[in-house]
Protein backbone atom coordinates (compact mmCIF):
# COMPACT_ATOMS: atom_id res chain seq x y z
CA UNK A 1 0.00 0.00 0.00
CA UNK A 2 1.55 3.30 -1.07
CA UNK A 3 1.44 6.63 0.76
CA UNK A 4 -1.46 8.01 -1.34
CA UNK A 5 -3.70 5.05 -0.56
CA UNK A 6 -2.85 5.27 3.15
CA UNK A 7 -3.67 8.99 3.09
CA UNK A 8 -7.04 8.32 1.41
CA UNK A 9 -7.97 5.65 3.93
CA UNK A 10 -6.94 7.87 6.85
CA UNK A 11 -8.99 10.73 5.41
CA UNK A 12 -12.05 8.47 5.04
CA UNK A 13 -11.68 7.16 8.60
CA UNK A 14 -11.34 10.71 9.96
CA UNK A 15 -14.38 11.91 7.99
CA UNK A 16 -16.40 8.91 9.14
CA UNK A 17 -15.36 9.55 12.73
CA UNK A 18 -16.30 13.24 12.47
CA UNK A 19 -19.68 12.37 10.97
CA UNK A 20 -20.37 9.75 13.63
CA UNK A 21 -19.37 12.19 16.40
CA UNK A 22 -21.63 14.87 14.91
CA UNK A 23 -24.52 12.41 14.69
CA UNK A 24 -24.06 11.26 18.30
CA UNK A 25 -23.90 14.91 19.42
CA UNK A 26 -27.02 15.79 17.45
CA UNK A 27 -28.98 12.81 18.75
CA UNK A 28 -27.99 13.80 22.30
CA UNK A 29 -29.01 17.46 21.80
CA UNK A 30 -32.23 16.56 19.94
CA UNK A 31 -33.25 14.16 22.70
CA UNK A 32 -32.54 16.52 25.58
CA UNK A 33 -34.90 19.50 25.52
CA UNK A 34 -33.10 21.52 28.21
CA UNK A 35 -29.64 21.33 26.58
CA UNK A 36 -31.23 22.10 23.22
CA UNK A 37 -32.91 25.17 24.73
CA UNK A 38 -29.66 26.29 26.38
CA UNK A 39 -27.81 26.13 23.06
CA UNK A 40 -30.67 27.90 21.31
CA UNK A 41 -30.67 30.73 23.88
CA UNK A 42 -26.91 31.25 23.62
CA UNK A 43 -26.98 31.27 19.82
CA UNK A 44 -29.94 33.65 19.71
CA UNK A 45 -28.16 36.05 22.06
CA UNK A 46 -25.04 35.86 19.92
CA UNK A 47 -26.81 36.57 16.65
CA UNK A 48 -29.05 39.40 17.89
CA UNK A 49 -26.44 42.14 17.13
CA UNK A 50 -26.28 40.95 13.48
CA UNK A 51 -30.06 41.29 13.08
CA UNK A 52 -30.09 44.65 14.83
CA UNK A 53 -27.39 45.75 12.38
CA UNK A 54 -29.53 44.51 9.48
CA UNK A 55 -32.56 46.46 10.73
CA UNK A 56 -30.45 49.59 11.11
CA UNK A 57 -28.99 49.17 7.63
CA UNK A 58 -32.33 48.52 5.89
CA UNK A 59 -33.86 51.53 7.66
CA UNK A 60 -31.03 53.76 6.42
CA UNK A 61 -31.39 52.35 2.91
CA UNK A 62 -35.12 53.10 2.95
CA UNK A 63 -34.40 56.73 3.86
CA UNK A 64 -31.74 56.91 1.17
CA UNK A 65 -34.18 55.37 -1.37
CA UNK A 66 -36.56 58.28 -0.68
CA UNK A 67 -33.98 60.74 -2.02
CA UNK A 68 -33.96 58.96 -5.35
CA UNK A 69 -37.71 59.31 -5.99
CA UNK A 70 -38.86 62.13 -8.26
CA UNK A 71 -40.63 65.17 -6.82
CA UNK A 72 -43.75 64.55 -8.92
CA UNK A 73 -44.10 60.96 -7.68
CA UNK A 74 -43.68 62.13 -4.09
CA UNK A 75 -46.37 64.83 -4.46
CA UNK A 76 -48.81 62.34 -6.01
CA UNK A 77 -48.10 59.78 -3.29
CA UNK A 78 -48.47 62.44 -0.60
CA UNK A 79 -51.88 63.53 -1.96
CA UNK A 80 -53.25 60.01 -2.20
CA UNK A 81 -51.94 59.13 1.28
CA UNK A 82 -53.40 62.33 2.80
CA UNK A 83 -56.87 61.57 1.47
CA UNK A 84 -56.58 57.98 2.70
CA UNK A 85 -55.46 59.17 6.15
CA UNK A 86 -58.50 61.50 6.35
CA UNK A 87 -60.86 58.68 5.45
CA UNK A 88 -59.26 56.29 7.93
CA UNK A 89 -59.28 58.90 10.71
CA UNK A 90 -63.06 59.23 10.39
CA UNK A 91 -63.46 55.43 10.42
CA UNK A 92 -61.12 55.16 13.40
CA UNK A 93 -63.08 57.70 15.43
CA UNK A 94 -66.30 55.68 15.17
CA UNK A 95 -64.39 52.44 15.75
CA UNK A 96 -62.69 53.77 18.88
CA UNK A 97 -66.06 54.80 20.28
CA UNK A 98 -67.47 51.32 19.67
CA UNK A 99 -64.38 49.65 21.18
CA UNK A 100 -64.59 51.89 24.26
CA UNK A 101 -68.26 51.14 24.66
CA UNK A 102 -67.59 47.42 24.20
CA UNK A 103 -64.83 47.46 26.86
CA UNK A 104 -67.04 49.42 29.28
CA UNK A 105 -69.84 46.91 28.86
CA UNK A 106 -67.44 43.98 29.40
CA UNK A 107 -66.06 45.61 32.52
CA UNK A 108 -69.58 46.22 33.76
CA UNK A 109 -70.26 42.51 33.34
CA UNK A 110 -66.96 41.61 35.04
CA UNK A 111 -65.24 40.40 31.86
CA UNK A 112 -62.42 42.87 31.32
CA UNK A 113 -59.93 41.65 28.73
CA UNK A 114 -57.24 44.25 29.25
CA UNK A 115 -53.67 43.02 29.08
CA UNK A 116 -50.45 44.93 28.83
CA UNK A 117 -48.96 45.31 25.34
CA UNK A 118 -45.25 45.49 24.64
CA UNK A 119 -43.93 46.82 21.35
CA UNK A 120 -41.26 44.60 19.79
CA UNK A 121 -39.12 44.82 16.67
CA UNK A 122 -39.13 41.86 14.30
CA UNK A 123 -35.47 40.90 13.85
CA UNK A 124 -36.02 37.88 11.65
CA UNK A 125 -38.94 37.30 9.31
CA UNK A 126 -40.65 33.97 8.54
CA UNK A 127 -39.07 33.49 5.12
CA UNK A 128 -35.64 32.80 6.70
CA UNK A 129 -36.62 29.24 7.57
CA UNK A 130 -39.14 26.59 6.53
CA UNK A 131 -40.64 26.77 10.06
CA UNK A 132 -42.71 29.97 9.73
CA UNK A 133 -41.30 31.60 12.86
CA UNK A 134 -40.55 35.20 13.81
CA UNK A 135 -37.77 36.41 16.08
CA UNK A 136 -38.39 39.45 18.27
CA UNK A 137 -35.93 41.69 20.11
CA UNK A 138 -37.69 41.36 23.47
CA UNK A 139 -37.22 38.61 26.02
CA UNK A 140 -37.28 37.63 29.66
CA UNK A 141 -35.85 40.94 30.82
CA UNK A 142 -38.85 42.73 29.27
CA UNK A 143 -41.34 40.42 30.98
CA UNK A 144 -42.11 38.24 27.96
CA UNK A 145 -43.02 34.63 28.73
CA UNK A 146 -43.82 31.50 26.78
CA UNK A 147 -47.44 31.46 25.62
CA UNK A 148 -47.87 35.24 25.29
CA UNK A 149 -49.92 36.22 22.24
CA UNK A 150 -48.34 38.33 19.50
CA UNK A 151 -50.32 40.86 17.46
CA UNK A 152 -49.69 42.85 14.33
CA UNK A 153 -51.28 46.31 14.26
CA UNK A 154 -52.55 45.69 17.80
CA UNK A 155 -55.55 43.60 16.69
CA UNK A 156 -54.45 40.91 14.27
CA UNK A 157 -53.33 37.83 16.21
CA UNK A 158 -50.37 36.24 14.44
CA UNK A 159 -48.81 33.77 16.86
CA UNK A 160 -47.63 32.69 20.28
CA UNK A 161 -44.27 33.14 21.99
CA UNK A 162 -42.70 29.71 21.92
CA UNK A 163 -39.23 30.28 23.32
CA UNK A 164 -37.76 33.13 25.33
CA UNK A 165 -34.16 33.99 26.10
CA UNK A 166 -32.74 37.06 27.84
CA UNK A 167 -33.67 39.59 25.13
CA UNK A 168 -34.77 37.54 22.13
CA UNK A 169 -37.94 35.52 21.73
CA UNK A 170 -39.19 33.16 19.07
CA UNK A 171 -42.79 33.33 17.85
CA UNK A 172 -44.53 30.35 16.30
CA UNK A 173 -47.08 31.72 13.86
CA UNK A 174 -50.62 30.37 13.94
CA UNK A 175 -50.18 29.77 10.23
CA UNK A 176 -47.20 27.40 10.70
CA UNK A 177 -47.68 24.28 8.57
CA UNK A 178 -49.56 21.61 10.51
CA UNK A 179 -50.90 23.97 13.18
CA UNK A 180 -54.58 23.56 14.08
CA UNK A 181 -56.57 26.32 15.76
CA UNK A 182 -60.20 26.81 16.66
CA UNK A 183 -61.77 29.82 14.95
CA UNK A 184 -65.13 31.45 14.42
CA UNK A 185 -66.11 32.67 10.96
CA UNK A 186 -68.22 35.66 9.96
CA UNK A 187 -71.04 37.44 11.75
CA UNK A 188 -72.78 34.10 12.43
CA UNK A 189 -69.70 32.97 14.43
CA UNK A 190 -69.55 29.59 12.74
CA UNK A 191 -67.08 27.42 14.67
CA UNK A 192 -64.38 25.52 12.77
CA UNK A 193 -60.82 24.24 12.94
CA UNK A 194 -58.32 26.12 10.76
CA UNK A 195 -55.17 24.43 9.45
CA UNK A 196 -52.01 26.50 9.03
CA UNK A 197 -50.56 26.52 5.52
CA UNK A 198 -47.53 28.76 6.13
CA UNK A 199 -46.88 32.44 5.38
CA UNK A 200 -50.05 33.70 7.09
CA UNK A 201 -52.36 31.38 5.09
CA UNK A 202 -54.98 29.02 6.51
CA UNK A 203 -57.46 26.46 5.28
CA UNK A 204 -60.84 25.50 6.76
CA UNK A 205 -63.19 22.78 5.62
CA UNK A 206 -66.94 23.26 6.24
CA UNK A 207 -70.17 21.65 4.99
CA UNK A 208 -71.45 23.33 1.81
CA UNK A 209 -74.68 24.51 3.40
CA UNK A 210 -72.86 26.91 5.75
CA UNK A 211 -73.13 30.43 4.37
CA UNK A 212 -69.64 31.98 4.17
CA UNK A 213 -68.77 34.96 1.98
CA UNK A 214 -65.44 36.22 0.70
CA UNK A 215 -64.32 39.04 2.98
CA UNK A 216 -65.83 37.50 6.15
CA UNK A 217 -63.72 38.04 9.26
CA UNK A 218 -62.16 35.04 11.03
CA UNK A 219 -61.56 35.48 14.74
CA UNK A 220 -60.79 33.49 17.87
CA UNK A 221 -63.69 32.09 19.88
CA UNK A 222 -63.06 34.45 22.82
CA UNK A 223 -64.63 37.50 24.40
CA UNK A 224 -62.02 39.84 22.96
CA UNK A 225 -62.04 40.84 19.31
CA UNK A 226 -58.87 39.23 18.00
CA UNK A 227 -58.89 39.04 14.23
CA UNK A 228 -57.05 36.11 12.70
CA UNK A 229 -57.79 36.62 9.04
CA UNK A 230 -60.11 37.49 6.19
CA UNK A 231 -61.75 34.94 3.86
CA UNK A 232 -59.96 35.17 0.50
CA UNK A 233 -61.40 32.33 -1.52
CA UNK A 234 -64.08 29.66 -1.25
CA UNK A 235 -63.55 26.47 -3.22
CA UNK A 236 -66.49 24.13 -3.73
CA UNK A 237 -67.27 21.71 -6.53
CA UNK A 238 -70.91 20.90 -7.34
CA UNK A 239 -70.31 17.25 -6.45
CA UNK A 240 -68.58 17.98 -3.10
CA UNK A 241 -70.41 17.98 0.20
CA UNK A 242 -67.73 20.19 1.76
CA UNK A 243 -66.37 23.61 0.86
CA UNK A 244 -62.77 24.64 1.41
CA UNK A 245 -62.29 28.14 2.75
CA UNK A 246 -58.93 29.77 2.22
CA UNK A 247 -58.11 32.73 4.37
CA UNK A 248 -55.04 34.74 5.29
CA UNK A 249 -53.81 37.24 7.82
CA UNK A 250 -54.55 40.78 6.67
CA UNK A 251 -50.86 41.62 7.21
CA UNK A 252 -47.91 40.63 5.08
CA UNK A 253 -45.65 38.66 7.41
CA UNK A 254 -42.55 39.45 5.37
CA UNK A 255 -43.12 43.19 5.67
CA UNK A 256 -43.75 43.23 9.40
CA UNK A 257 -41.45 45.58 11.25
CA UNK A 258 -43.13 45.94 14.63
CA UNK A 259 -45.49 43.72 16.58
CA UNK A 260 -47.19 43.91 19.96
CA UNK A 261 -46.70 41.20 22.59
CA UNK A 262 -49.63 40.96 25.01
CA UNK A 263 -48.10 40.02 28.31
CA UNK A 264 -50.37 37.80 30.37
Amino acid at each position, binding site marked *: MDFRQQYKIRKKVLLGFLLAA*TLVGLVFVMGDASSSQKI*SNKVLQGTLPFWRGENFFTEKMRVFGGFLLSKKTLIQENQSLSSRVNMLEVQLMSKNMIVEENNDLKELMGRSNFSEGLLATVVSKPNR*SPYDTLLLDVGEEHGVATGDKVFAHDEVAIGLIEEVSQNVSRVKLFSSPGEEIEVTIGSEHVGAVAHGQGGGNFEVSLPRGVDIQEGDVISFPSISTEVLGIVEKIQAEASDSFQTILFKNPVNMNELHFVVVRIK
Partner: protein
Amino acid sequence: MALRIIAQFIMLFSLLFLPWWVTALCGIVFLFFITSFYEIIFWGFLGDVLYGTQITSLYNFSYLMTVGALVLFVLMQYAKKEMRLYEL
Protein backbone atom coordinates in the same frame (compact mmCIF):
# COMPACT_ATOMS: atom_id res chain seq x y z
CA MET B 1 -8.97 26.20 1.36
CA ALA B 2 -9.82 29.82 0.54
CA LEU B 3 -13.09 28.71 -1.10
CA ARG B 4 -13.93 26.69 2.01
CA ILE B 5 -13.49 29.72 4.26
CA ILE B 6 -15.46 32.00 1.92
CA ALA B 7 -18.21 29.34 1.81
CA GLN B 8 -18.57 29.50 5.62
CA PHE B 9 -19.10 33.26 5.50
CA ILE B 10 -21.61 32.97 2.67
CA MET B 11 -23.51 30.24 4.52
CA LEU B 12 -23.62 32.31 7.73
CA PHE B 13 -24.76 35.41 5.85
CA SER B 14 -27.49 33.58 3.93
CA LEU B 15 -28.68 31.78 7.06
CA LEU B 16 -29.06 35.04 8.98
CA PHE B 17 -30.33 37.38 6.28
CA LEU B 18 -31.64 35.50 3.23
CA PRO B 19 -34.63 33.20 2.59
CA TRP B 20 -34.03 29.56 3.56
CA TRP B 21 -34.17 28.30 -0.02
CA VAL B 22 -31.19 30.54 -0.92
CA THR B 23 -29.24 28.95 1.95
CA ALA B 24 -30.23 25.51 0.69
CA LEU B 25 -29.13 26.42 -2.83
CA CYS B 26 -25.78 27.75 -1.58
CA GLY B 27 -25.32 24.54 0.42
CA ILE B 28 -25.92 22.38 -2.67
CA VAL B 29 -23.46 24.46 -4.74
CA PHE B 30 -20.77 24.21 -2.04
CA LEU B 31 -21.41 20.48 -1.62
CA PHE B 32 -20.67 20.10 -5.30
CA PHE B 33 -17.57 22.28 -5.50
CA ILE B 34 -15.94 21.61 -2.13
CA THR B 35 -14.62 18.19 -1.20
CA SER B 36 -16.61 16.76 1.72
CA PHE B 37 -18.42 19.95 2.69
CA TYR B 38 -19.49 18.41 6.02
CA GLU B 39 -19.87 21.90 7.54
CA ILE B 40 -23.33 21.94 5.93
CA ILE B 41 -24.57 19.75 8.80
CA PHE B 42 -23.43 22.41 11.27
CA TRP B 43 -25.18 25.15 9.28
CA GLY B 44 -28.36 23.06 9.19
CA PHE B 45 -28.13 22.58 12.94
CA LEU B 46 -27.56 26.32 13.47
CA GLY B 47 -30.64 27.05 11.34
CA ASP B 48 -32.71 24.73 13.54
CA VAL B 49 -31.32 26.26 16.72
CA LEU B 50 -32.14 29.78 15.49
CA TYR B 51 -35.51 29.31 13.85
CA GLY B 52 -36.65 25.78 14.65
CA THR B 53 -39.97 24.97 16.19
CA GLN B 54 -41.86 21.76 16.84
CA ILE B 55 -43.76 20.68 13.75
CA THR B 56 -47.05 19.14 14.81
CA SER B 57 -47.50 17.14 11.62
CA LEU B 58 -44.02 15.60 12.06
CA TYR B 59 -44.62 14.36 15.61
CA ASN B 60 -43.17 17.59 17.10
CA PHE B 61 -39.84 17.09 15.37
CA SER B 62 -37.80 20.31 15.27
CA TYR B 63 -34.56 19.46 13.44
CA LEU B 64 -35.76 19.61 9.86
CA MET B 65 -32.79 21.58 8.53
CA THR B 66 -30.18 19.36 10.24
CA VAL B 67 -31.72 16.22 8.78
CA GLY B 68 -32.10 17.95 5.40
CA ALA B 69 -28.42 18.93 5.43
CA LEU B 70 -27.39 15.41 6.43
CA VAL B 71 -29.45 13.86 3.65
CA LEU B 72 -28.07 16.38 1.12
CA PHE B 73 -24.52 15.64 2.26
CA VAL B 74 -24.89 11.88 1.87
CA LEU B 75 -26.74 12.19 -1.46
CA MET B 76 -24.16 14.59 -2.91
CA GLN B 77 -21.24 12.39 -1.79
CA TYR B 78 -22.88 9.51 -3.62
CA ALA B 79 -23.87 11.60 -6.65
CA LYS B 80 -20.35 13.06 -7.00
CA LYS B 81 -18.86 9.57 -7.14
CA GLU B 82 -21.25 8.61 -9.93
CA MET B 83 -20.82 11.80 -11.98
CA ARG B 84 -18.39 11.82 -14.88
CA LEU B 85 -18.43 15.61 -14.86
CA TYR B 86 -17.03 15.71 -11.34
CA GLU B 87 -14.07 13.51 -12.32
CA LEU B 88 -12.92 15.98 -14.97
